[in-house]
């Protein structure tokens, strides 16, 4: 919209509670913002739309809830922290964007569990511990005695039980996650003028959708292209060796997480087609095993470095940390490290008893991680690509969108 085109639509009803609500998600004092736009001038993601992130802050200040939740730009931010560095009023726009994403995740979640987890750290912590204990207890009730002889996890906890529990958890997560994603896509789509018809109804539409998907999932999610090329200030990038760069560390978590999911799925698939049963001892170079090992190493490395950097406040992006940040890292790290330890136990001579206990921890925490995904920071793994899909669509020539 330009300054001269005044819409004839009804006035936007202001939600007086929006700003105090966002503040509960960790927003620092954004009220200090006087809309100077220095953040927009500094933001590497603000190339095509000179009003970001200033406009998003304005939405929050004024209480323009719908406009805020339907802003795809919210998710283009990789929190480089440049804006907070340059902000003349020290309003910390970068932390504000993070808090607003938390708020968005909570808003898309109809169960209000995400809201409780984000706004009440004590509740979140107790819930996380309790849920892990619950899963552990649940599995223990069905666990047999620690078997002697070769390392055989399924002899300890029945494979069926783990599998079925996993399926139930997946279904629950899919339902909760899908509801949120649909809400988000509908809101953004409405604002962007994108309908199912325009996205999928025509050949040109499909082509654009394909390109947008490639941008969102290929380039941005797996490639981390803009994160790598644009969202790291030169001085920050130069201050650390390449293997400590933010984008790479984050990418290793992404790759590791996805790699492990793929390895688990493939392992199960191999069992389904009868190639080998899950849990069978295979050589280290066995492709699925190798994938799992490499992905696991990647995840352990990534999560470890993220934890260290966050603890040390090593860069602008991690100056402020919330319980939600720590919880995701902790769950990822425990899952990855215990997974690795199990593999170690598998290949060690003899049958180390700790292997079984770590396995119990592993399945319990992994189940919890998946179950809580839509209600915690991990949800960004889905919401961000959805928003980026719309960014990818908007980046394409307009005339094709008719």
């Amino acid at each position, binding site marked *: 919209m330009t300054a001269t085109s005044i819409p004839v639509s009804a006035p936007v009803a202001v939600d007086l509670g929006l700003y105090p609500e966002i503040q509960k998600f960790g927003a620092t004092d954004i009220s200090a913002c006087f809309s100077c736009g220095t953040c927009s001038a500094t933001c590497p993601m603000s190339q095509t739309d000179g*009003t970001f992130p200033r406009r998003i802050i304005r939405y929050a200040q004024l209480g323009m809830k719908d406009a805020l939740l339907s802003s795809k730009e919210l998710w283009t931010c990789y929190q480089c922290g440049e804006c907070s560095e340059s902000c003349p009023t020290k309003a910390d726009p970068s932390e504000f964007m993070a808090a607003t994403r938390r708020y968005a995740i909570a808003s898309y979640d109809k169960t209000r569990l995400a809201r409780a987890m984000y706004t009440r750290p004590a509740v979140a912590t107790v819930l996380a511990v309790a849920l892990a204990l619950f899963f552990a207890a649940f599995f223990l009730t069905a666990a047999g005695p620690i078997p002697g002889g070769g390392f055989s996890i399924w002899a300890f906890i029945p494979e069926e039980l783990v599998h079925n529990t996993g399926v139930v958890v997946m279904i629950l997560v899919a339902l909760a996650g899908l509801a949120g994603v649909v809400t988000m896509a509908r809101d953004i789509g409405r604002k962007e003028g994108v309908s199912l018809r325009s996205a999928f109804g025509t050949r040109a539409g499909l082509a654009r959708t394909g390109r947008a998907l490639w941008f969102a999932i290929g380039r941005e999610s797996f490639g981390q292209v803009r994160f790598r090329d644009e969202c790291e200030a030169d001085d920050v990038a130069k201050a650390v060796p390449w293997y400590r760069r933010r984008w790479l560390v984050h990418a290793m978590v992404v790759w590791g997480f996805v790699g492990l999911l793929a390895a688990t799925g493939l392992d199960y698939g191999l069992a389904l087609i009868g190639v080998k049963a899950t849990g069978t001892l295979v050589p280290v170079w066995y492709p699925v095993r190798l994938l799992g090992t490499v992905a696991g190493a990647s995840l352990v490395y990534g999560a470890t470095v993220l934890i260290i950097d966050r603890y040390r406040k090593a860069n602008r992006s991690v100056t402020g940390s919330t319980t939600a940040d720590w919880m995701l890292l902790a769950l990822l790290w425990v899952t990855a490290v215990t997974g690795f330890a199990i593999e170690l136990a598998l290949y060690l001579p003899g049958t180390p008893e700790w292997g079984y206990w770590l396995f119990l921890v592993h399945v319990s925490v992994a189940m919890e991680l998946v179950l809580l995904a839509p209600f915690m920071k991990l949800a960004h793994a889905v919401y961000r690509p959805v928003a980026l899909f719309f960014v990818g669509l908007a980046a394409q020539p307009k005339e094709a969108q008719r």
Partner: protein
Amino acid sequence: MSDETLTPTPAEEAEGGRRIGVYVCHCGGNISDYVDVEKVISDIRESGDVVVSRTTMFACSDASQQDIEADIKANNLDGLVVASCSPKLHTYTFRGVASRAGLNPYEYTQVNIREQCSWVHTDDREGATAKATALVMAGIGRTRNTIPLEPMVVDTIPHTLVIGGGIAGLRAAIGLADVGLRVTVVERELSLGGWVKQLGRMYPHGKDGRRLIEDLVAKVKSRPAITVLTGAEVVGKAGSFGNYHVSVRVGGEGAGTIDVAVGSIVVATGFEAYTPEEGELGFGTEGVITLPEFKELVDGASGPLAWKGRPVRSVAYIYCVGSRNTAGCSNAYCSRFCCASTVQTAVQVSGLDPSVRQFHLYRDMRTYGKFEPLYTEARDAGSVFLKFDNDEPPTVAMGANGRLTVTVRDLLTERTELALPVDLVVLVTGMVPRENAELVDVLKLPKGADGFFNEIHPKLRPVETVVDGVLIAGACQGPKTSAESVTQALASVTQSAAILKKGFTELDPLVAVVDADQCTACGDCLTTCPYDAIKMSESADRHFATIDAASCKGCGGCIPYCPENAIDLLGYTDAEVTAMITNMAEVPV
């Protein structure tokens, strides 16, 4: 200076007339580019009584002034004509030149050949030159008829009347007493303090307005030189500069008046808060209040705000109401204090209850100077600022649910039209001049188009009015903060002291005089004087009009009414003016 000195010709010597020096200024080229100044000199040189005639590049330069002084002394001149710019600029300059050279300053005539000749006749050099010659000839004609005059010395009364007992009036009274003048303070209300007395915490010292006034009143009371009349009004003024007799009505209508003799008068009558028109930005709707009402509410609160028993959880402030032609109002000026006052109040509100949502709908935020931190403070405390365009002012409406909604197009959010649901709408009303018709009439106070009292010069004479000895201070002169009002109050103290501390004052002697012998006491002149300077007097055998020189402003208004031509205006006598016209008429233009 071109060498055009002439030794007196025998003919001039023989006439036994005046010895006049005439100087025609180039003014750099401002005059000489369009007027042949050398020709002017040669045309007037032989006109008689002119002993010295020169052109000069800049007559007002120090060097030229010294040259003229030397000429006056060397040639024993008894009259001086400088043809240069407007008398408004340099009359006093060349009167000074005359004085320094021992010549009576009223023997000097300024001729304006710049504003009234060269600048307006740039297309006609010949005509301009002829006109300049005619003007200079007129000046010479006048100067032939000048007489030495001495300034009138008037004794002054070391007593000042302060009208208005607000912060400016009180501070002025204390200052006046402290420089050794007696003071009478007249306050229309029954108690002192004005607007400031009603205020709570003020910025930046954090002191209550009430406390501030209490301190001032205590200081006033501790000074025996100050007399305070409350419930009192000025109803009459007689006398002249330095010796005014002011009638003050005390004790309300029908009660007695007392006379106060004063040398100067400080008017500090303050302002009135703007009252919006019914319907102006929602005014008249329940929950739409003005800034003074809101300040009273906030100053009186010790916890979360409530209006009419309902908690106030959100407030919208609409700025510039009654100022800057906002929403079609006719006041063009900015009221200065309101931005700072409002953001300060908003900070106070946040202090009472940090969760109150406050929206400031402004046109331009003018928390100027040292008030700027208040704006930052307000933002830090959570106030949100929305900028509207005066072409599209906000609208205020009461919904069916009994809730106020302010609709505004925010220039900072892509002109998005927003509907703000609020509990209270505060119209940030500015200052308007106080209705003071009687006082204006009594003191002959000059008012500007905006209704505030006018100073003589906005920069150089900010508290003086065209009425000698009547000074203005505070918001009666125009919208101001209390600090600015006090500054003016103290300036009026200085001005009063400058007038009154010497014990006398010198007045221009250019006043009307009556020739008592010619006066037939017809009385026609008595009603013509706007300054009540003419009185009928009597001697042993007859009546005749007299003019009080100290009251006369030299306007000349009485002169044409006299059937006997018995009144003359010193400096512009009939003889002088007739000579000017005659001389001018002789020059073919």
